[in-house]
């Protein structure tokens, strides 16, 4: 079976600083894959590379077997990959409802249509309402996204990411800055919403990582030093030395 995401020998330099070195990563379809690593290891850069936000200096990235390195983000998105951002990246002046609805439009085939009334597209309306329900923001639907609380914005960020129904979902630190209770709720949400899809998640909270992931990759200085099941990663001496230290027993 072809992997959902396949990263082959990707390198990325900004100027003459090499951030990503010989990156190899394989995420199977339907897998929940966590990427962990210290601050500045290149996790978000890896997300940017896979989602087309930046282009690799060399190497190749495949989505469901098709080469996507070199494609623009919207082209990759149309092929079924959707990502969220570590720093909330929503449509600030638009309402919560509009934010989610815009993320639904392409996937429901309405594209650049200028001859249809958005309000009278039943499947768009239903899907938007469904997503708002899922992310617990129905009661805030008419509030401009810029006025939401931090935790609500993080939930909206997830909502926008999953709204298009992409088969591969990438979440960059979705629970960062959340309280314990909020994190628990968000993880339950992520677990439910990505059921049957492929999930790649960057997360610093180890209890979240080990509770959620089928497989874990450890990124250190732009290179994946280990990839495996939670048990394998826990027992890997290289990982212990390089990253986990005392955090995992």
């Amino acid at each position, binding site marked *: 079976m072809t992997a959902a995401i396949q990263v082959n020998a990707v390198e990325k330099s900004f100027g003459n600083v090499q951030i990503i070195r010989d990156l190899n990563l394989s995420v199977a379809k339907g897998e929940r894959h966590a990427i962990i690593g210290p601050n500045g290891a290149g996790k978000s850069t890896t997300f940017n590379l896979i989602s087309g936000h930046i282009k690799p200096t060399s190497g190749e990235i495949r989505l469901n077997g098709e080469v996507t390195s070199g494609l623009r983000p919207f082209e990759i*998105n*149309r092929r079924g990959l959707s990502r969220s951002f570590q720093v909330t990246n929503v449509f600030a002046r638009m309402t919560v409802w509009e934010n989610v609805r815009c993320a639904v439009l392409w996937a429901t085939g309405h594209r650049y249509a200028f001859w249809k009334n*958005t*309000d009278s597209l039943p499947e768009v309306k239903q899907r938007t309402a469904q997503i708002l329900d*899922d992310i617990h923001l129905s009661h805030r639907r008419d509030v401009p996204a810029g006025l939401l609380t931090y935790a609500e914005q993080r939930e909206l960020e997830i909502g926008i990411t999953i709204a298009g129904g992409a088969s591969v979902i990438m979440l960059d630190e979705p629970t960062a800055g959340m309280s314990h209770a909020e994190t628990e709720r968000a993880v339950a949400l992520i677990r439910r919403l990505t059921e049957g899809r492929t999930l790649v998640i960057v997360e610093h909270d180890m209890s979240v990582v080990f509770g959620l992931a089928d497989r874990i990759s450890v990124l250190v200085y732009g290179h994946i030093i280990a990839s495996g099941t939670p048990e394998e990663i826990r027992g890997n001496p290289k990982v212990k030395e390089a990253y986990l230290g005392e955090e995992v027993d």
Partner: protein
Amino acid sequence: MTNAPTPSLAAAKQESGGALGFYGVWLLAAIALVVLPLIFSSGGSLTSFSLIGIAIIFALSYNILLGQTGLLSFGHAVQYGLGGFLAVHVMNAVASHNWPIPLPVIPLVGGIGGMAFALLVGWVMTKRAGTVFAMISLGIGELVASSSLILRSVFGGESGITTDRTSLMPLFGWTFGPQIQVYYLIAFWVLVSAIAMYALTRTPLGRICNAVRDNPERVEFIGYDPHVVRYLAYMFAGFFAGIAGGLTAINFEIANSAYLGAMQSGFVLFSTFIGGTAYFFGPILGAILVTYLQLGLTNVTSVWQLYFGVIFIGIVMFAPGGIAGILMKHRPLIRAGTLGTVIPSYLVAAIPTLAFALGIILAIETVARFSGGDPINLLGIPFVATAPTTWAAAAVLVVGGFLIARITWRRVAEAWDRAATVARDRGYLA
């Protein structure tokens, strides 16, 4: 897909609630357009209404760029002017060949002209938003305006190209000679264009335009190419600007290089911004006010442009949301029933503010008429520009008005905070 509980239907219900009010508004607008010239029937007001109508279409088309898509153009008059020129050429061709095309169709020709130009240059222009787009639009504006003076056969040089709107076939006995018939033709196109542009904002493209305005980066990650979105918006804006240009050509029976120029581009930016870009009706208010002021002020003062500048700076500094922004800010208070607690403070603030404004006017006119000109007449009181008493009066009004106004506006802000807190408690304000 997930199998979550059924979506909340409360959300869906709210969506369709405004349909009746929606059609009601357009019906009212149509009635207003029909009866307006019956109430104010003088030739002067007919001319004014015609110009205001055209300005409304033009400003709304500009807001497709500025308010809806976040594109600041300094050259929107290019599409307007080219639409006007194409309309004139087509009118002349129709007349000389006796083609069976009536005048009311001509604005559409203008629209096609504006859109065709946007189609041609738009792809390169809309690659980037922000400063790059603004600069290119300025460059294209200058380029077209200056070539219009060089290419005499197309643009008629300094004097422009004239036409005769009555030379086309009459429609139901209407020759469109009298201004009243031209007014109704314009009114028809105002209504049609406004409805079309409003409808455009409700389409998937229109919604995504807003998303591109707010965050073009994120748009790329929900499947859209912001470049294509901007390009399409630019074409629609060009189309409606061209309609406005075509109507102008019909109204004045001429198209000249002034239509394409920086003045005209500045005028539409000005109207749109003063009216308010965040709401659909903002540019309509702006077009009405600015056109009306322009027509009115030119009769009473020689430095009317200076007043425009002052108004513009005032709006940018104190009410960046424009008139529409000011109005809509009060909506939650009205709904919460707390507007009444703010109004007294407004009335108090109005007095020193008015004094300050009069002082500014007196100062400007004193300078403008110092070395000759008619005596100043302010609220029926005559002032002599060279008299020190006039200068003193101006100084007292400006300084005193400003100082007192500052205090009273602080009071307004306090009253506002109280009213807003109540509105928030009652759930009308986020």
